[in-house]
């Protein structure tokens, strides 16, 4: 009887091991000792500042996980590809990671337009994609089962939160608002309008092309609206041109720049012609503290320890570096929650339940059955061209996806 029981137990164990082994064998990128993650970011080219150090931050967090013993005994292996923030390069990188490198999941994308281009392929292949720091609203709304993002912030939240700040903190009743005439601009404006309506604020809107060279016309029209504040929700170059023009034309009301408007505040000060143009200036940020501030100092310390050579260079860590941490944290937490025998389905199910405060970003990472955008909160910094001071409070958008 005992023999029979032993034999049965051995056979059952063997069968179980075979079945789970077979299941593991069917999950690409997964072995008993490793989980392969396909990472992609702009490692070269004009948009390198948006993602090079973000990828480094995610990698250093995975290294920390590995040093602490990995996830259920598995070490994370990162395969990194350069997407140059270009849709063609990004889709090619994704295909290589999925088909050639056979990764378990994807973790990448620092530029929204480029990462949205991979949506169709990712969904068709039922591949988990956890974005790095791209807003990627176009891939998050309507929600799919496979794509999670906006660890920095969604563009909808950028637009809503900046109006929230202008109205609540600066008491603006009429806001001059300049955005881009592309998808980004439309997302920003849609949420801004929701907040403006609820806060009973009037918006005077001018939408411009990202490649605009002469901002005289839109600025003059905004000034003619006699606003209480000027909100700029554009990319870096148009933003600097508008601030410069506002200074040249003697505009003294508060100017509030979205987080998308510059990757370097000191460069912004140079580009607008000096400090005088920033006398009444606020910049939106999505971190939990001032860059390098006490709440997030550990991230910068970790970076210095992980990349001493890079940290010694003048432009490093790049501004967006900490954004890589919450994305990596979310992956680690979901893998942990997926259990010792993870599958992509289990990982995706765990991602949908992810809810934690990274301590790095202004708001928590909250996903649900219907929500794929992680962060919706922002802070604001008063910047005078030299000094930065944190404005108290966290500002969020009232916009909700309605399907």
């Amino acid at each position, binding site marked *: 009887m005992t023999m029979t029981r032993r034999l049965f137990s051995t056979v059952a164990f063997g069968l179980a091991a075979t079945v789970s082994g077979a299941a593991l064998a069917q999950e690409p990128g997964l072995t008993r000792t490793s989980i392969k993650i396909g990472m992609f970011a702009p490692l070269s080219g004009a948009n390198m500042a948006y993602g090079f150090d973000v990828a480094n931050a995610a990698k250093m967090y995975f290294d920390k996980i590995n040093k602490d013993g990995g996830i259920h005994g598995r070490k994370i292996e990162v395969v990194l590809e350069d997407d140059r923030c270009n849709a063609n390069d990004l889709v090619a990188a994704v295909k290589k990671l999925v088909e050639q490198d056979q990764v378990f999941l994807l973790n990448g994308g620092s530029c929204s337009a480029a990462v949205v281009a991979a949506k169709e392929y990712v969904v068709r292949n039922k591949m988990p994609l956890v974005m790095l720091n791209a807003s990627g609203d176009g891939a998050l709304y309507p929600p799919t089962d496979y794509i999670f993002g906006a660890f920095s912030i969604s563009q909808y939240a950028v637009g809503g939160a900046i109006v929230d700040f202008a109205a609540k903190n600066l008491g603006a009743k009429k806001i001059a608002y300049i955005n881009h*005439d592309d998808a980004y601009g439309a997302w920003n404006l849609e949420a801004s309008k929701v907040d403006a309506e609820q806060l009973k604020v009037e918006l005077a809107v001018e939408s411009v092309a990202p490649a605009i060279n*002469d901002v005289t*016309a839109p600025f003059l029209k905004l000034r003619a609206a006699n606003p209480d504040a000027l909100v700029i929700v554009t990319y870096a170059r148009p933003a600097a041109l508008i601030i410069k023009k506002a200074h040249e034309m003697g505009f003294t009301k508060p100017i509030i720049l979205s987080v998308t408007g510059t990757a370097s505040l000191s460069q912004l000060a140079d580009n607008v012609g000096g400090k005088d143009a920033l006398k009444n200036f606020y910049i939106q940020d999505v971190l939990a503290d001032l860059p390098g501030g006490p709440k997030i100092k550990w991230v910068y310390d970790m970076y210095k320890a992980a990349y001493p050579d890079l940290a010694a260079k003048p432009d490093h860590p790049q501004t967006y570096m900490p954004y890589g941490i919450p994305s990596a944290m979310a992956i680690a937490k979901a893998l942990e929650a997926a259990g010792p025998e993870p599958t992509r389905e289990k990982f995706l199910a765990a991602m949908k339940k992810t809810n934690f405060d990274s301590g790095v970003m202004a708001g928590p990472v909250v996903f649900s059955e219907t929500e794929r955008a992680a962060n919706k909160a922002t802070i604001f910094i008063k910047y005078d061209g030299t000094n930065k001071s944190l404005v108290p409070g966290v500002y969020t958008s009232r916009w909700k996806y309605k399907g």
Partner: protein
Amino acid sequence: MDWSLFWLFAQQGLASGIVVGSVYALLALAIVMIFKTSEVPNFAQGEVFMAAGYLALFLFVFQGQPVWLTVAVTLVVSFLAAALFRRGVLRQVALASGSPVNLVIATLGLSYILKGLVRRTGFGDTPRSFPALVGTDSIMIGQASVTRLDLAILAAAVAVMAFVFWLFAYTKVGRAMRAVGMNPKAAQLMGVNLEKIHMLVWGLSGVVSAIAALLISPKILMTADMGSIVTMAFAAAIVGGFSSLPGAVVGGFIIGIVENFVGLFISSRAIAVAPFAAIMLVLIIRPQGLFGGKFAIKKV
């Protein structure tokens, strides 16, 4: 819109349009110069402009060279680079096939090379400001607000245009350039060294582009994509009549002013399409452009 606002917009639009239009005019001049003598539209003109701007930025900001040396080196390098491209690449392409399409593709190749080179330097990663060599404090002209830099841009652009016209109209080398443009074989028979003239025209076009870059860079901020401004210059050249130097200048001012007026009186969203609307309008009403002269069948 009330009358006072209309009047303010009109004055400001005109002033800003003339300033930015003067830079479009310079670039259009550079394009037309080459087209007149070789019938090749130089699609790398914007990148020559951009690369010259970055060279000046590197010398002045990152190397701390004095202004005079920065300007001199930028102009000389731009001249040599453009002239040598003509001699080393376009001549070989022309000898190999003679097809204008291949020459155009060679200019496209140059545009990619220059953009790639600037990106490789790392300076093109973020928008950068070339320090204004003239003050940026405002001056009121009527109700229009312009900066001293704006006035300096306009004055310098007009001076360069005047020099180019003088060169083409009153000097021996200018007459040779025009002769090459009208009938290269006849010009050669008259003793004009065709290749030398082509190199000179390309070099001069490079210098004019570099001057445009030095003038406008403090205003528009520098990125590796700043060469896209050449689209406006092509629009100016087409409006003016592609083979006419005065046409290029007038076209530049028209495009600058139209851009501003469309932005002020119609919509900011329409600024980007305004130059193309102007092209369509001109091509419908006067297909040869404003200064293009009558259509003629070219003798072969």
